[in-house]
């Protein structure tokens, strides 16, 4: 079920895995032991298709990595020490989102079964951020088996749990593993996994240095199997029907998830709106706006406001994905990477447009300027599209850096200034009532920028999220 030959993984000059060989037959539960820094997580990330091998062959569920990554992801469930769940969605909404990403049919019925299995039916409508760590991990297991995968990867799932929560998690792990699935679990604690696994491999200095079978395992598992009601199906849950999650369906799921989480928390929109209004107020003091200055300065003030507020939104939108490891959750779904990019871009565009819809009438009232001009609306739409197209790409990069708090505006502004200049010029043209022929060059410029930045971002997004 899993076959790894001569796997090498290098990070720059540092070699983490050095010709590792590893094999797991179907239905076996293997514990991968090793001290911190031995390469367990790196190895599991390669098996999970989150990281590319430098050299060697990796085959999971009958498919080769990285060539058949999408097929591997369809047959794979991953639980790490981070739950990969959205805190501002309920347990049910989280499962619904991932179900849509995996193309699970009869999703409501499947969600009910999963919630029952992990013992969270009564908490299905509670936000995940209100859950204890143990409950989050149980729901994370539910998320991992939602699409009924053949292979499960557990990366130190006990991290941060107390004894009771660990025991409860072990019972759940035993149950999901006992349904004929192939399981690999990493741990640095032998005592923790000795009741679960049938084989123990030790990873040291980038290779499997020792391997042993657990004699007691077979007896215990046999006893457990005898106690369980016998069924003809090796997985007692109903057969999960899946279709491949379409491109548009995945985009729709991401937009739905972002809007649902934001409409509940309102953290991002509130911050963007308050910041936008503050910028407008500060410009009022800075420029002492008399009617003449106001007419000239309005397009610049508006676009400075949108750009600053937009940066806040982009930063927060991607930070949410990094929180609780959700970006990995997205990347584990068997959908094209560009669907993730377009989904995030559309969400960010929606947030930016909402802020603009609020800012425009407020500005009109505060400065007694009529901004309800169809031409201006078109310019705002085109400018915003270009801004979020490149902004989503760069925020995906910025959020993965050490200096994530400050880096996004520094990366973004020099690149989007051409868009802002064209947008300001075009807005100014419409507000001053210039002929359309005089404004059209800037509109054309905006369209060209939008197309170029969207195309470039689409082409390189893979490189930003892969390892």
């Amino acid at each position, binding site marked *: 079920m899993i076959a790894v030959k001569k796997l090498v993984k290098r*990070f*720059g000059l540092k070699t983490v895995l050095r010709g590792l060989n590893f094999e797991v037959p179907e239905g076996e539960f293997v514990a991968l032991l090793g001290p911190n820094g031995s390469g367990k997580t790196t190895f599991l990330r390669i098996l999970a298709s989150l990281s590319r091998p430098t050299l060697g062959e990796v085959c999971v569920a009958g498919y080769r990595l990285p060539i058949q990554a999408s097929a591997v992801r369809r047959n794979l469930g991953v639980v790490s020490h981070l739950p990969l769940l959205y805190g501002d969605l309920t347990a049910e909404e989280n499962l619904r989102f991932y179900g849509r990403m995996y193309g699970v049919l009869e999703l409501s019925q499947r969600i009910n079964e999963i919630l029952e299995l992990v013992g969270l039916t009564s908490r299905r409508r509670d936000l995940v951020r209100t859950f204890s760590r143990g409950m989050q991990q149980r729901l994370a297991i539910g998320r991992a088996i939602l699409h009924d995968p053949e292979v499960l990867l557990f990366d130190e799932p006990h991290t941060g749990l107390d004894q009771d929560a660990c025991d409860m998690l072990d019972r759940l792990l035993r149950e999901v593993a006992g349904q004929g699935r192939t399981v690999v679990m990493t741990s640095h604690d032998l005592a923790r996994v000795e009741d679960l696994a049938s084989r123990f491999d030790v990873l040291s200095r980038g290779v499997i240095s020792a391997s042993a079978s657990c004699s007691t395992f077979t007896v215990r598992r046999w006893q457990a199997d005898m106690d369980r009601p016998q069924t003809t199906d090796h997985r007692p849950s109903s057969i999960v029907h899946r279709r491949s999650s379409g491109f548009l369906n995945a985009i729709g799921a991401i937009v739905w998830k972002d809007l649902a989480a934001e409409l509940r928390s309102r953290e991002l929109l509130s911050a963007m709106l308050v910041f936008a209004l503050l910028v407008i107020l500060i410009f009022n003091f800075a420029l002492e706006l008399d009617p003449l200055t106001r007419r000239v300065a309005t397009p610049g003030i508006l676009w400075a406001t949108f750009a600053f507020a937009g940066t806040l939104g982009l930063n927060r939108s991607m930070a949410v994905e990094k929180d609780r490891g959700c970006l990995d959750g997205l990347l584990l779904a068997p959908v094209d990477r560009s669907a993730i990019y377009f989904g995030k871009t559309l969400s960010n565009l929606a947030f930016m447009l909402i802020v603009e819809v609020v800012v425009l009438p407020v500005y009109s009232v505060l400065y007694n300027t009529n901004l309800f001009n169809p031409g201006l609306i078109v310019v705002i739409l085109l400018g915003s599209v270009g801004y979020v197209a490149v902004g989503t790409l760069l925020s995906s*990069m910025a959020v993965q850096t050490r200096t994530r708090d400050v*880096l996004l505006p*520094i990366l973004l502004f020099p690149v989007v200034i051409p868009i802002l200049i064209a947008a300001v010029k075009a807005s100014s043209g419409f507000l001053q009532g210039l002929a359309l022929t005089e404004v059209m060059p800037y509109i054309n410029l905006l369209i060209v920028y939008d197309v170029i930045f969207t195309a470039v971002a689409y082409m390189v997004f893979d490189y930003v999220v892969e390892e």
Partner: protein
Amino acid sequence: MKPQPIILKVLNVISVLLFLAALGMVFLYAPLEATMNYVQKIFYFHIANAWVGMLGFIAAAVAGVVYLIKHDQKWDIIELAAVEISLVFFLIAIAAGSIWARPSWGAYWTWEPRLTTAAILEMVYISYLLLRQGIDDPDRRARFSAVYTLVGAISIPITFMSIRLFRTIHPVVIGTNSAASQGSFDMTSKMLATMFFALFTFSVIFVNLFWHRIRLGQLAQQVEQLKLEELQ
């Protein structure tokens, strides 16, 4: 540590000799321009620096694309070398342009579109260096840098195009001059010869420095390798 290759040593000498010759041509061979006098001499350095600055930024974008295809760290070293050197050349071009602008336009700096886009271009590559500083993992650093170089490279044609897209006072020395441009002048054949010689000289200096910087990058990589071997 490997000594410098012979060709590089020869190139060092050629670069110095060419630079001295270019200085000679600028101050002794090229005629004095009628209205701007000696100030016009800086034009030869301005345009030569801008040329190699652009050359480096394009080289960086190409190296970035090759890195994304091949995932080979050597292309990351080449990309960084090109950006660092171009950043300095382009900064000199902007400073030289400002010195030229003072008598021509009456100000060291105007917010004229090409100057503004040139400043933006500098900012893109300063941001590039800040991006690199914020990432510890060498693979990720190289990937993100390559992507950002590619996105930033879109700004390079904008700098060239801006002179056509917007009305400008920046002189178009080569090609059709706009009616609104100020500070332009008719080039004599000697001026033209000097300009092309300066372009050639700075191109050679660029190749020389580029080679040195790549070599430095490779040596730094070797030091890292030795440190890792010591630790392991």
